Every structure is written in structure tokens, then in C-alpha cells.
């Protein structure tokens, strides 16, 4: 299974809640940390690895990861989705859409995918990489499914879909569009050895209310589809009332506004707090002037002479849906009223069109009229036929469909190789425990970066994208909020001598002793790295960086800093402060070629040994840039870094190399640009001292 590099095996240790919450188990922590370090290509690689549609997800994923983010316990979740978008925007597509992912040798067996939505595209992608010949059928003229015909353009420009689909074509996947599959058995008879049904959930539905079949009573999906395909629907002067409170209802409302409607209102059974749409979607709709009427049930479309006049409503206290699907609520007497409208759009749910399934029932359906599958394998009741996405779930998130696509691809591969598909699915990862109050109390609150958006008054008149994406400075600040859950320190108990250093230096009061050795609870560690840098037994290692990697980086930095006729200067620069924000690029540009920086997340991670190593490897001068006293992300990482610098300065004097070659700069992000000047002073001083006598070049 080595060829399945696009379906990475998950590590066995407990994973951060964001990774566990993501149905595709994207290494969220990894890519957010890479952005925090300024390594944007690595961030893209990690975001792309388990997800063939990162550009799309960066814009419209429902991001269950953020709902689970443990920073919510401190202030607000990390803006994970926006960071994924940033990683895709920074990715150089000339390096390929899927850097590092392999394609296996061609294999026997053609696979038909019915539906080019996110589930179908994912399964096609995986199977093509495994070497299978894949054909994707879609009833629409362009691939994308609901992404193409459902999601409004102001949320997902169609060029974004193009970016994702083009590399799939390059993988050799055949796309047959404008072809609605009506006979699954015919596909099997046609030589396809397996079929994946990912037809989505494209049928809107109406309540059986009086006058619901009038011409000006529309359906959500039909309306969105017409708008998405560019039909010029003129709603100018119209009073539109949307029945429903979910995310699709919000899309309908905002599209109606953009089509010129004079007034757009939504009404739903749910109360303000129970409304099913995501809070951020509701907020955007409200910003744009959509009105919301909660706690209402609908009795009748009021009409006069065949023209819609409004919807007769009654106020209710809706408590949820009963198992049989009926609403659990009481109507309040004498609250009947009419919400006026001349166009009513039902947005109360959707269902898959399953009329194409074999009449013999061989592909069974659930009582909810969705395709019945084994949830572990996506296998339907018909051998060789698999299904996933909204056609199975009724309605789900894009990332759910992507995960189902991955499962189906694994299953189809197993099925075609005669293996039980249930045996090839990876186990669900274990989740880290919650943060304890004590840990939370030590974490610095950091404000969530607002997503820059198109101005509200412009938004209402155009289908231009609303979200504009982060600048680099914003993305880095946003990524710095990540708590790096679960990627912190681990103790080698064979080396630990319980000296208590880690217990004493940890700014988060995380380490303790268990059975005579130090223990850093993985679910509480904030990965500041202080304990690892201070451990006298070198018994502590950090998950996301190692001494070996750092020494390699130092070696490279020294090599690159040399050969410019100027002193070779190596700097360890904290990305949280001294080298964060808007000015990082500016400073980097201003630093001459003989100055090479190694970015670290907190100067507290800069081990005393790294400083000596830089000199040992031939640096003429070395500096550490951390933040101002009292401003360290990890409270006192900069203090420890300063003490280490002072200690090594003493050693350098003893050795005879001279302490003047090593400096610690403390500066705030705002003073970032001053670093060039500080480094200039150090360089001049080092120049006076002459080349390091350690240099051999």
C-alpha cells in the first residue's frame, strides 16, 4: 500500500481536537505551525496531503476543526479555515498541485464515479493515484457538483474549482459531463469493475401549504442553481421571504439581495440561538441587511389573484424535531400574522434524487430516502457499488464528502484486489483531553484576526467574493494563536533523573513527576520548548523540532552567511515577536546576505548549545532576537534566552573568542524593522574584531 501516500497513516498518539474533528483528519496543527514559522509551502503540502480540494475548503469548508479548537477555552478558536486559504494562496502552483504525492503504476480495473462533487472528485483522485482508470460522470456541464451549482459565487469563485479540477484531469481522470447516469447496472455491464455513487442531494422540497405551487413560490436549490449558472434573474423591487434558517437558506437570502431584491427576510421555526445556520453566516447575512424572523411556523402562502402576498405564520416555541421528523413545539394562541412577500423561497431541506437507482432495490435506501451504506466502507448493498457524500447523509459538509471519498477509494481498491474493504480503513484517532483550567489561565489571550471582507455596501450589488483573504502578517498572527496541542515535549524516561528542572521552568505549570521521572502531560503542554532547552540530562525532546534539525539549519545558515566578504552572522529570530508581523519581509529584505536568520517560535527554544554550535561551525557573529521583557508569548522564554546568551558570552570570553561576537536583541513586533539596525551594529563590531579564528575557509 506504499503507493497510497495521499492517504497518510495517522500517528498513534492522541491528536489535537482540530485534527480529530476534521473528517479527513487534516494535519491542521502541522500546517498552522508551518505558517507560524513562515514556511508556507510546507503548510500547503500538509493541507493538501489528505485533501484534494484545499483551495475550495480554504474558502467554504464548514471547518468543524474550529468548533473543537482548544483556544476557544482561552478566547476564540484559531482561524484555521482562513489559514488554509492563505496556504493555498501562497502556494506556487508551478510546484504542482500535490507536491510529494506519488502516482502508482497503472492497475487493472476501471472505476466509474457518478457525480463530480467533492466526494466523487476525492474518490477519483485517490483511485487515479492508486493507478486505476477512473471515469467521472456528471449531469452538469462542469465538474464540482454542489460547489458548481449550489454554492453562491460570492463565496466560491468558479476559478477556484478550475484550480482543483485541472490537476485531476492531468492525473488521467476522464470527465464525462452533461451525462446523467440513469442505469447503474449498465455501468457495470460496460466494464466498470466498481462504481461510486456520489450524486449529491439536489432536490429541494416544499411544505404542503395552501398556494405552495404558485409560480412565485420557489425552491432553494433550483434558485441557487439558476443563479450559480449565471442566469440573469431580476429581483429588483421584490420582497423576498425565505422559509428556513439553515446555511442554504442564508445562501438563498444573500443571492436574492445581490439580484436586486428590495427586501429579503428569512423566517424559521428555530429561535435565534437554535438557528441551524453557522453563526458567522448569520452575521454576514445580517450585515448585508437580511431580516430574520425566528420562532415561527408557517400555515399558508397568502395569495391574491394568484399573486403571492406573504406567508401566514404563528409564533411557536420550537424545541427540536421528534424522531418521526415532526417538530416538537407549541403554537402560541392569537399570534397569527402575515409576513409580507411577493416571492417566497422554500429552504427547508434537501434530498437526493435517487430515481436512477436499480428498480430491483439491489442498492437499498434508508427510510430517510438516502442511499444505505456501511459507514465504515461506504459499500452499498450491491457488490461493487459504493456511495458517499450527501446522497448518503442527506446533507453534510464538503469535508464530510471528501472523507467519504477517501473511504470509498480505499474500499474500492480493496474490493478490486479481493480484500475485505472493512479491513483497510484506518482506525479513528484518539483525541487529546481538554485543557485544564490551570493551563488555560497561563495562556496569553490573543485576538483573532478578522477576515478582511468586501465592504457591505459593495457586497449587496455584486457576486464578487466577500472574503478577501489574509495578508501575510495577518496569517502569521493568526497562526501564532495556535496552542500546538499535543506536539510538545516528551520525556525520555531512561535519561530523566527527576532533577525537577522542567517542573520549575515551565511557564504553564504542566510537568510533574510520575513514578520517579518527569512527565509532561501531552494534552496540557504548550510546546514552548523551555524544558527541553533547559534539561541538563537532555532527556526532553520536542515533537516538531529536534536538535539534529536545528544543528542542520545552523550549518546551512553559517554556510550561506559566509562568502560575502563580510562577517558571517547567524541570528535566531523569534517569529512571535522580534521577527513577526508586517515587517518580517521588510527586515529580511534589509538584512544583507551575510546575515542569515533561523526562525524559531519563541527565543526560549534557542538552546545554549545552538549558540556555541554556530561559532563552532564558523560564524563570526551570532545574535538572538526575542521580545521585550514581559511580552514573551511564553511569558519568560526571552528571559531564559537572555540568561543563556549571557552565560555563553562568559564562555566565549574564557575561550578567547570574545563575548562581543554574541548579542541578544529584545524588541517588540512593532520594532521589528529596527532589527536591521541592531544587526548592522553587531556586524560592524564583529568586523572590527576580525574574522572568527574558528573559520577555515
Amino acid at each position, binding site marked *: 500500500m506504499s503507493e497510497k501516500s495521499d492517504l497518510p497513516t495517522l500517528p498513534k498518539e492522541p491528536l489535537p481536537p482540530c485534527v480529530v474533528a476534521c473528517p479527513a483528519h487534516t494535519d491542521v496543527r502541522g500546517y498552522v505551525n508551518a505558517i507560524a514559522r513562515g514556511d508556507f509551502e510546507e503548510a500547503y503540502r500538509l493541507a493538501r496531503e489528505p485533501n484534494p480540494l484545499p483551495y475550495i475548503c480554504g474558502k467554504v469548508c464548514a471547518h468543524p476543526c474550529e468548533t473543537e479548537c482548544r483556544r476557544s477555552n482561552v478566547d476564540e478558536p484559531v482561524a484555521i479555515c482562513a489559514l488554509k486559504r492563505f496556504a493555498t494562496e501562497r502556494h506556487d502552483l508551478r510546484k504542482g498541485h500535490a507536491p510529494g504525492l506519488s502516482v502508482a503504476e497503472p492497475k487493472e480495473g476501471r472505476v466509474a464515479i457518478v457525480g463530480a462533487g467533492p466526494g466523487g472528485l476525492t474518490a477519483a483522485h485517490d483511485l487515479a493515484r492508486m493507478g486505476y482508470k477512473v471515469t467521472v460522470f456528471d449531469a452538469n456541464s462542469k465538474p464540482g457538483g454542489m460547489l458548481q451549482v449550489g454554492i453562491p459565487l460570492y463565496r466560491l469563485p468558479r476559478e477556484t474549482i478550475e484550480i482543483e479540477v485541472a490537476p485531476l484531469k492531468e492525473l488521467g481522470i476522464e470527465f464525462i459531463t452533461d451525462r446523467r447516469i440513469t442505469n447503474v447496472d449498465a455501468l457495470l455491464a460496460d466494464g466498470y469493475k466498481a462504481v461510486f455513487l456520489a450524486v449529491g442531494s439536489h432536490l429541494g422540497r416544499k411544505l404542503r401549504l395552501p398556494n405552495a405551487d404558485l409560480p412565485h413560490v420557489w425552491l432553494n436549490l433550483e434558485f441557487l442553481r439558476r443563479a450559480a449558472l449565471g442566469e440573469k434573474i431580476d429581483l429588483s423591487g421584490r420582497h423576498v421571504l425565505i422559509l428556513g434558517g439553515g446555511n442554504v437558506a442564508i445562501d438563498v437570502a444573500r443571492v436574492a439581495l445581490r439580484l436586486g431584491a428590495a427586501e429579503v427576510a428569512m423566517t424559521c421555526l428555530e429561535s435565534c440561538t437554535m438557528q441551524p445556520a453557522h453563526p458567522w453566516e448569520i452575521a454576514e447575512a445580517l450585515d448585508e441587511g437580511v431580516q430574520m424572523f425566528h420562532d415561527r411556523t408557517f400555515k399558508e402562502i397568502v395569495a391574491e389573484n394568484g399573486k403571492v402576498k406573504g406567508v401566514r405564520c404563528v409564533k411557536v416555541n420550537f424545541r427540536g424535531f421528534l424522531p418521526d421528523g415532526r417538530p416538537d413545539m407549541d403554537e402560541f394562541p392569537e399570534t397569527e400574522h402575515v409576513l409580507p412577500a411577493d416571492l417566497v423561497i422554500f429552504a427547508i431541506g434537501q434530498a437526493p434524487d435517487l430515481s436512477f437507482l436499480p428498480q430491483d432495490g439491489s442498492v437499498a435506501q434508508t427510510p430517510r430516502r438516502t442511499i444505505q451504506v456501511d459507514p465504515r466502507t461506504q459499500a452499498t448493498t450491491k457488490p461493487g457499488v459504493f456511495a458517499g457524500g450527501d446522497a448518503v447523509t442527506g446533507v453534510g459538509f464538503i469535508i464530510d464528502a471528501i472523507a467519504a471519498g477517501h473511504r470509498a477509494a480505499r474500499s474500492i481498491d480493496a474490493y478490486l484486489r479481493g480484500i475485505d474493504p472493512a479491513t483497510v480503513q484506518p482506525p479513528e484517532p484518539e483525541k487529546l483531553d481538554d485543557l485544564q483550567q490551570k493551563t488555560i489561565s497561563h495562556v496569553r489571550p490573543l485576538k483573532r484576526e478578522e477576515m478582511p471582507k468586501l465592504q457591505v455596501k459593495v457586497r449587496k450589488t455584486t457576486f464578487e467574493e466577500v472574503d478577501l483573504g489574509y495578508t501575510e502578517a495577518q496569517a502569521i498572527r493568526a497562526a501564532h494563536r495556535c496552542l500546538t496541542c499535543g506536539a510538545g515535549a516528551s520525556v525520555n524516561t531512561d*535519561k530523566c*533523573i527527576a*532533577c525537577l*528542572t522542567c517542573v*520549575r*521552568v515551565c511557564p504553564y505549570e504542566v510537568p510533574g513527576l510520575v513514578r520517579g521521572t518527569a512527565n509532561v502531560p501531552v494534552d496540557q503542554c504548550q510546546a514552548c520548548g523551555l524544558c527541553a532547552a533547559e*534539561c*541538563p*540530562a*537532555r532527556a526532553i525532546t520536542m515533537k516538531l523540532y529536534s536538535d539534529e534539525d536545528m544543528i542542520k539549519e545552523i550549518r546551512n545558515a553559517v554556510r550561506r552567511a559566509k562568502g560575502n566578504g563580510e562577517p558571517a552572522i547567524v541570528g535566531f529570530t523569534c517569529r512571535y515577536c522580534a521577527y513577526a508581523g508586517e515587517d518580517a519581509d521588510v527586515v529580511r529584505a534589509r538584512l544583507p546576505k551575510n546575515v542569515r536568520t533561523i526562525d524559531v517560535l519563541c527565543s526560549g527554544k534557542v538552546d*545554549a*548549545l545552538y549558540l*556555541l*554550535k554556530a*561559532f*563552532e561551525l564558523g560564524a563570526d557573529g551570532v545574535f538572538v532576537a526575542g521580545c521585550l521583557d514581559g511580552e514573551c508569548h511564553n511569558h519568560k522564554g526571552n528571559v531564559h534566552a537572555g540568561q543563556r546568551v549571557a552565560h555563553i558570552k562568559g*564562555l566565549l570570553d*574564557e*575561550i*578567547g*573568542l570574545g563575548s562581543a561576537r554574541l548579542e541578544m536583541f529584545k524588541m517588540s513586533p512593532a520594532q521589528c524593522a529596527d532589527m536591521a539596525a541592531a544587526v548592522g551594529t553587531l556586524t560592524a563590531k564583529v568586523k572590527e574584531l576580525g574574522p572568527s*579564528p*574558528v573559520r*577555515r575557509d
Partner: protein
Amino acid sequence: MIKAKQKPIAEIKEMIAPYKKVLILGCGTCVTISFAGGEKEVGLLASSLRIASTMEGQDKTFAEATVQRQCEWEFIDAVADQIKGADAVLSMACGIGVQALAERYPDKVVLPAVNTTFLGMAVEHGVLVERCRACGDCILGLTAGVCPIARCAKNLLNGPCGGSQKGKCEVNPELDCAWQLIYDRLGRLGQLDRLAKIMVPKDWSKDYDGGPRKIVREDLKL
């Protein structure tokens, strides 16, 4: 625990001057805890000596190893090959470890990289203080748990002396007067009457004055 402090680099350089292949051998117990000779310090010393050696145009090599306890044959034998391959072993252990090496490897040059300083503890992180002189005849039961041998500059058994000033020692005004501490604690324990009794001279033969000491547990011998 045994506390130690690294020797000045100049002294170490002088000791290792005649040798080309040097093994820097750390100890993973007391000197690690006292930040003097654990694996971390081995790395720092090795790097420092490499820098110094390169600066002086020498082609010395410095190998690094750390054993769990240099004062045990079994642990030092774990790095026997490295010891044998070196011209000299620069031990970062306490004096016991250095001597254990010298005894186990009679033909090998063994040099101390640290000064074994005292028996003590960390009163705060990075601050180590002396608490015991290993006098062989503990009187802490008489002195309210404060040792006048280790903590009084004059090792007085009947203190304080006239040099006790506002609770501090005349020898070093930063030092607490041990006898003031004893007085205060006895007071707290309601045992001030003990001070009325003159302490008789200690049996110093149990200390170094009786020559190197030895403990034999017949019941444990193999």
C-alpha cells in the same frame, strides 16, 4: 546530593594540552542535577573545546558520552570502547567518578573537568547551597535540624560567636548565621533550654581526621 562546578576553560585546556583524542565523559546523576557535568554540559564543553582547539590550530578531537553514574564500574564499562580509544578521558563527574575511572582503567589518563564542591541542595532553581560536611557524626538532632558544622564558618558546636550580626555571619554578610537559625528554630520548637547545655567536643576521628572512611555491611557482602 554532591554539587560541583565546572573548572575554568583555561585550566581544562592546560590539562588536555598533551592529548589529541579526548573523551568528554559526563555523569548522569549528581553533577547533572547540579548543572555541572550532565549530557547538556558535556555538549557545551565539547563545543567550547572544539572552538578553542580550532582557534589554536590544533587538530584535537572531542568525543562525547554520558553514563548513568561514573561511580559504578558497571556503568563506566558501558563506554569501555570509547574510553580505550581516547588518549585522555576528561571526566565531568565528581571526584568519585574520576577516581572510579582511574581505578577501573589503570593505564588511562583521567582528568577532572569539574571541581567537586559540596554536599547540598538547590534552594531555588540555579542556586545551590552547602548543607552537609559528611562529618560522620550527625548532630542535627541536637541543633534543630540546622548543621553548624556545614553552615557555620567556624564549625562551632556552641554558638553563636560574637561575629553573628543581625542574623548574618561576619565571614560573609550574605550568609545566614547558622547559630541564629538554630536559635530561632529551637525557639519555635520550644526547646531553647537545650542551649543551656554545653555541647562536648565531637569525635572528629569519624570525620576526615581518622583517615579515609569505609563502611562495610557484612550482611550485604557477596
